[in-house]
């Protein structure tokens, strides 16, 4: 392979570094109306009255929008396949506000100053209601967060709003209770994970204008432009054909932009007034009023026999979706489906639980998408079990974990929102990942701990898996066209959000067309101009969209060869092509691609060669990895210093090894954030205290000492050039690996995230 799996620079890095116009707000019209939202100071309240008489009449105020301006059409902000597996439980604006930061009304004016002033002049009278802030007491609480009648599910997701349940799920393979009874060793532990914030550096941003055909053109920093178009159309009853959504460069997403945020209000304003409008979330709004990761409680029971065989896993989970149910069911299912198959030799496995409403900031999609929560619980529990059995946790894992050519019945039972798809692991080098990781971290010398006078050094590890798109649901497509002078345009619906998909997809096309990256010009994510793609989520872009690109490139190559055969007057089978020239061995006839493309553009039998192909996965081959952490703990303060993180990853072929490494490195650091740095704190009244970057600490440069990220040789037959996904897998292991390392150092088990010195201190004192 010439282009794939070779050092190829990102195609856009130079222009981005030079500060070229690229991101959503760079494209806002100069005269855009500013849209700002008045947000609820109460966790739960009914809006009794709004006095906006002064604000409305301020010079420069265009309009004040309240719930009375909108038809009651429930929708979900979640950008997912349609019909969505998330409940339609949200209105553009509502009479009720359900968390601190929820939308009360919107003010629209000619500049920030006047809008801010107007916001201060509006008087809202609330009937303050008692909130539900403890997710463990939300189910069947007498306080109902969503009593409204219009809300509904699109298909059965276990939606029971009269019990504060957004969705529920349950599955059992074998008989867990019986199997556990037959086990020689059983452990049970309860784990808690926090509402991690995405902190993509570009806040949610959107702007809109009407064009000369009287269509609304929306620029949005989104991961799902096609879903945004659909949701706006449904929520505002604007015909789909009147809406164009363009996704420019996006400054990070991590799942946070797999939903609509300001789009609905901005689209409404522009459509209604005919004027351009824009909205940029403040950082506080990103924290409080977009969504976070689903906090969960996970009760794990594991049972093993005396031969060291893991026999049963029981996971009872509870997830807090906050005020709205975005991604509620699907995140929850991934907690089971992309975690539990790791140990596929069990006789019985069960995964059940509810996703409940509370009066907190909603939860939604976030890299890892449930798997990181499940992984923390399972991989901590495995170490607890090993300790009880007095076996080496690595030997235990190697004996019980998934291997190549094996499967798990879970794949068939659990999908995302629906049943799953059976599949065999055609590529799974997890054992190699574990071995290599042990070497790279120096496990043999360092496990479990090395003590010095004031410090203890220790190691911990965890294994993980993810998926590659959602089979039979996620669709990606690509159009490739041949231009005169022999270069190509590649149009994809796939959504570059900083992960490098434009580069990776270009490489796939270039490889197949045997040309250089420079000869393939990519344009992505414009609902008018590019073919459909579900967007950037579920680790689907390289695998699903990449396969679509490969298909299109193959077909275009065929068509070019047919043209060459015609021009050279030979049979198609006799045409050779090396990316630059078409020739016939026997007759020495030859035409270059440049000449061919010029001819069919300008002179003989002119035509445009262009191919559109689509791809829907028939399975979701999981990438696998082993993560190892080395830490140093101060014996007095219990301060944790993360010295080294080793990631050994099987993601099939790395289309772009450097970008793949970047995906893993970045995800590891986000995972370490969740594991150690990113504490989420609420005030008694449900107010998020950690609502800015001073109070919510993401890892900085100084916190990251050493990352070693390597890939094992692996080839996934069904992936483009052997590739699987790599976007999410990196985030899963740090919480459990760190918890295990802390245990190996001190013998205390921290079961809630983040793992801090205060928690260690408290545990030790107990």
């Amino acid at each position: 392979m010439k282009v794939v799996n070779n050092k190829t620079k990102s195609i856009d890095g130079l222009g981005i570094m030079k500060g070229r116009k690229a991101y959503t707000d760079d494209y806002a019209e100069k005269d855009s109306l500013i849209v700002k939202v008045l947000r609820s100071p109460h966790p739960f309240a009914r809006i009794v009255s709004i006095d906006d008489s002064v604000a409305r009449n301020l010079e420069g105020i265009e309009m004040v929008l309240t719930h009375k301006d909108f038809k009651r059409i429930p929708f979900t902000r979640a950008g997912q396949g349609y019909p969505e597996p998330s409940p339609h439980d949200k209105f553009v604006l509502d009479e009720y506000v359900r968390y601190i930061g929820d939308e009360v009304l919107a003010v629209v004016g000619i500049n920030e100053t006047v809008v801010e002033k107007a916001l201060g002049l509006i008087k809202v009278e609330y009937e303050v209601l008692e909130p539900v802030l403890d997710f463990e007491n939300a189910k069947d609480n007498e306080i109902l967060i969503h009593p409204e009648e219009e809300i509904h599910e699109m298909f059965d997701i276990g939606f029971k709003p009269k019990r504060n349940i957004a969705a529920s799920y349950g599955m059992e393979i074998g008989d867990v209770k019986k199997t556990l009874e037959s086990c020689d060793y059983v452990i049970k532990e309860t784990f808690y994970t926090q509402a991690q914030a995405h902190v993509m550096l570009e806040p949610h941003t959107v702007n809109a204008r009407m064009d000369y055909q009287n269509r609304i053109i929306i620029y949005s920093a989104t991961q799902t432009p096609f879903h945004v178009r659909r949701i706006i159309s449904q929520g505002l009853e604007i015909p789909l054909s009147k809406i164009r959504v363009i996704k420019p460069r996006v400054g990070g997403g991590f799942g946070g932009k797999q939903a609509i945020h300001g789009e609905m209000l901005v689209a409404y304003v522009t459509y209604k007034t005919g004027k351009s409008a824009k909205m940029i979330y403040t950082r506080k709004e990103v924290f409080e009023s977009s969504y976070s990761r689903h906090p969960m409680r996970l009760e794990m029971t594991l049972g093993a026999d005396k031969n060291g065989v893991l026999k049963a896993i029981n996971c009872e989970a509870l997830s807090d979706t906050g005020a709205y149910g975005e991604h509620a069911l699907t995140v929850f299912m991934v907690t089971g489906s992309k975690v539990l198959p790791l140990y596929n030799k069990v006789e019985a496995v069960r995964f059940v639980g509810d996703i409940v409403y509370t009066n907190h900031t909603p939860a939604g999609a976030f890299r890892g998408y449930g798997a990181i929560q499940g992984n923390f619980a399972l991989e901590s529990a495995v170490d607890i079990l090993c300790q009880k059995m007095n076996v080496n946790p690595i030997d235990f894992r190697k004996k019980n974990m998934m291997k190549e050519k094996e499967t798990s019945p879970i794949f068939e039972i659990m999908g995302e929102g629906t049943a799953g798809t059976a599949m065999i692991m055609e590529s799974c080098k997890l054992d190699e990942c574990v071995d290599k990781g042990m070497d790279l971290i120096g496990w043999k010398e360092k496990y479990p701990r090395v003590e010095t006078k004031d410090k203890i050094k220790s190691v911990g590890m965890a294994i993980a898996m993810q998926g590659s798109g959602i089979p039979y649901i996620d669709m990606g497509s690509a159009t490739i066209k041949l231009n005169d002078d022999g270069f190509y345009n590649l149009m994809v619906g796939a959504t570059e959000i900083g992960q490098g998909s434009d580069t990776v997809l270009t490489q796939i096309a270039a490889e197949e067309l045997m040309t250089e990256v420079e000869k393939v010009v990519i344009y992505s994510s414009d609902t008018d101009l590019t073919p459909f793609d579900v967007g950037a989520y579920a680790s689907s872009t390289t695998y699903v969209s990449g396969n679509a690109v490969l298909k299109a490139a193959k077909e275009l190559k065929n068509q070019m060869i047919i043209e060459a055969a015609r021009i050279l007057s030979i049979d198609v089978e006799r045409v050779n092509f090396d990316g630059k020239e078409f020739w016939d061995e026997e007759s020495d006839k030859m035409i270059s691609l440049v000449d061919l493309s010029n001819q069919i553009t300008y002179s003989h039998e002119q035509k445009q060669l262009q191919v559109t192909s689509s791809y829907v996965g028939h399975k979701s081959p999981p990438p696998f990895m082993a993560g190892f952490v080395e830490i140093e703990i101060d014996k007095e303060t219990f301060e944790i210093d993360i010295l080294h993180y080793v990631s050994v990853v099987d993601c099939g072929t790395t289309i772009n090894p450097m970008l793949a490494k970047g995906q893993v490195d970045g995800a590891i650091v986000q995972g370490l954030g969740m594991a150690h740095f990113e504490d989420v704190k609420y005030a008694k009244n449900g107010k998020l205290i950690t609502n800015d970057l001073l109070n919510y600490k993401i890892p900085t440069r100084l916190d990251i000492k050493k990352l070693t990220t390597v890939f094992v040789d692996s080839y996934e037959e069904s992936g483009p050039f052997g590739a699987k996904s790599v976007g999410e897998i990196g985030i899963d292991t740090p919480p459990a690996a760190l918890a295990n390392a802390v245990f190996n150092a001190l013998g205390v088990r921290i079961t809630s995230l983040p793992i801090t010195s205060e928690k260690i201190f408290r545990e030790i004192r107990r």
Partner: protein
Amino acid sequence: MKIDLTINKQKRTFLVEPNEYLLDVLRRYDYHSVRRGCDNTSCGVCTVLLDGKPVPSCSVLAIRCENRDITTVEGIEKEAEKLAHYFGELGADQCGYCNPSMALTVYALKRENKNAGDEDIKSYLVGNLCRCTGYVAQHEAIKRYLGDES
């Protein structure tokens, strides 16, 4: 009110409000490379050089810049190209929202301390957050850039 200043070696006059921050003025005047990432000076993506020193433009009142010298990444094109080269070589670029501010800060560091060691680099750049890369590839790229005498 009107203020005169030099930006990227060009003398310009900007019309500003007395309470307007430099960041908002620069964006209004189409210096798109300067971006906002937070509300309270805690992310670094709005960094510009003010009289050669990196400052967060979100916390500098525009009127304070009267007769002063501002550099955005558009003013250090060649340096940005060099840094981009090393970023590309090491796969250190992801969403890039933090990149122009990084280029300015690293450029300032290079002028202040050519021999900056690992910890110097990290400390100097600690205010420039990046949520995508995990910092390690960036760090390597920055080291190569600092060592590039061309």
